[in-house]
């Protein structure tokens, strides 16, 4: 008996690392976080731009008309800025497009100073566009919606919906069937 225990422990600590040496944490998977401003139509006098403060990784973008904020590199955590349309002339629009295309040549500070100079106000900060969940998670994506107010800075979404896949049935049904069979076996034996 003792020899068997020692053999199993040796197996655990010497043999298993060889077959499981991958340092990647594959117990997690990446999922998208979709962010949408639901009341963007209430602000026809503003253009909304989104920008992450991480240089060389997070280009400035204009928020789509339907309020979709779009996706960014996971460490960008961008903010949304509201810019009065009156300040958003063709010249500014072209400059923002240039900053978007040549984003590696603009420092974060330069972009932020420019946004402020044309009247940009932060309305949402610290937006996440992706996250990691355990591989076994039933969550397939996260849908965040924001109801903005030009005079406030939102730090959290107003509503979050997390659609789930059908693994939930597997997690409930299989253990239930197994438990019924185990109880049946134990019951039959005791009878």
């Amino acid at each position, binding site marked *: *008996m003792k020899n*068997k*225990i020692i*053999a*199993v*422990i040796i*197996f*655990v*600590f010497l043999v*298993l*690392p060889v077959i*499981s*040496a*991958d340092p990647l944490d*594959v*117990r997690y*998977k990446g999922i998208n976080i979709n962010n949408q401003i639901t009341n963007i139509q209430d602000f026809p006098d503003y253009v909304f731009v989104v920008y992450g403060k991480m240089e060389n990784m997070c280009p400035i973008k204009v928020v789509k008309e339907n309020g979709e904020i779009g996706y960014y590199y996971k460490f960008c955590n961008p903010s949304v800025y509201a810019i009065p349309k009156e300040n958003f002339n063709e010249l500014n629009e072209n400059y923002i497009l240039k900053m978007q295309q040549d984003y590696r040549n603009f420092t974060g500070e330069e972009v932020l100073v420019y946004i402020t100079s044309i009247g940009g106000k932060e309305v949402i900060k610290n937006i996440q566009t992706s996250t990691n*969940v*355990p*591989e*076994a*998670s*039933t969550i397939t994506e996260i849908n965040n919606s924001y109801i903005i107010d030009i005079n406030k800075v939102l730090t959290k979404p107003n509503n979050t919906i997390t659609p789930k*896949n059908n*693994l939930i049935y*597997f*997690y*409930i049904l*299989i*253990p239930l*069937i*197994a*438990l019924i*069979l*185990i109880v049946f*076996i*134990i019951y039959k034996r005791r009878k």
Partner: protein
Amino acid sequence: MNSYVFLLINFLLTFILETIVYLIFIRDKKIKIILYCFLINAFTWPLANFFYSFLGMFYLIEFLVFVIEGFLVFELFNLSYKKAFLISFLSNLITAYIGFSI
């Protein structure tokens, strides 16, 4: 890798490794050992993964799995508590170790 395939491989790996430990320590019909090991894992593995995916708390969940499996091994194989929990401890030590490593 697709999540479903990953989970299936994960389950099969857990089942195979625990079966090996059961076969080493339990003297009984092989088919019975394999079937009971499958039932025990079919009960604990999905629940452990489900709760882990929501709560994290790896150690607490592994401890609960160890206790539940120990009790089920004791009941299904008519072993002493000491031996049943030793088997449960060793089989979960292996699977927890793999869970950490891969």
